[in-house]
């Protein structure tokens, strides 16, 4: 299990490669990457604030739960904070399991929890001003299926 909360960019290819290479007895690796998206066409950058200490604890708790629930062999979570431009990678999750269904489900479970239960807040810096991104009901509802 590897959890990193950092301001610096990460090399998605290198991370995915290293993660997959380390899994001798796992038949499946699933990766997910979140990217800064310019929805309205006027996004200058995205600023992500977090709660140092609680963030790491929350990610660890959910990673541990995913390991047990989906019998994962390994989990990697990298989540950035600070300022990012459209197209930059915000975060990634990788899961390893003996079979693909558990690897997919583990990654989805982690993403659903990360969206609504890890203390990150996104602020959009637009050409016309700034706006905190509001939490979506669908994201909260998604937790219901677990």
């Amino acid at each position, binding site marked *: 299990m590897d959890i990193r909360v950092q301001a610096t960019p990460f090399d998605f290819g290198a991370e995915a490669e290293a993660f997959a290479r380390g899994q001798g007895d796992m038949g499946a690796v699933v990766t997910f990457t*979140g990217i800064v998206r310019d929805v309205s066409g006027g996004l200058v950058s995205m600023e992500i*604030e977090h*709660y140092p*200490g*609680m963030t790491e*604890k929350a990610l660890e708790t959910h990673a541990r739960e995913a390991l047990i629930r989906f019998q994962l062999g390994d989990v990697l979570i990298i*989540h950035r904070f600070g300022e990012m431009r459209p197209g930059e990678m*915000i*975060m990634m999750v990788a899961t390893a399991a003996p079979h693909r269904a558990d690897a997919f489900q583990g990654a989805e479970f982690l*993403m659903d929890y*990360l*969206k*609504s*239960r*890890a*203390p*990150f*807040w*996104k*602020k959009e810096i637009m050409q016309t001003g700034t706006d*905190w*991104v*509001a*939490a979506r009901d669908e994201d*909260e509802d998604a937790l219901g299926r677990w």
Partner: protein
Amino acid sequence: MQLLYFAWVRERIGLPRETVETEARTVAELVEELKAREERYAAAFADLSALRVALDQELADFNAPLKDVREVAFFPPMTGG
């Protein structure tokens, strides 16, 4: 007791953290004390349904007791991922 504010709660109150002496027994009582202090607190805590609270870095309810709690954080619903 250490109070922490994040995102628009921090912006509305105008500071990221502060230390307070309080006799409040629950989070809700602490919120009432803060609201009575100044308009900016009253504005930040006007709608509790738009806020979340963590006690010693664990999510909690507004009616949770504050006994032995050292760190209280107030913030809007989280938007990670």
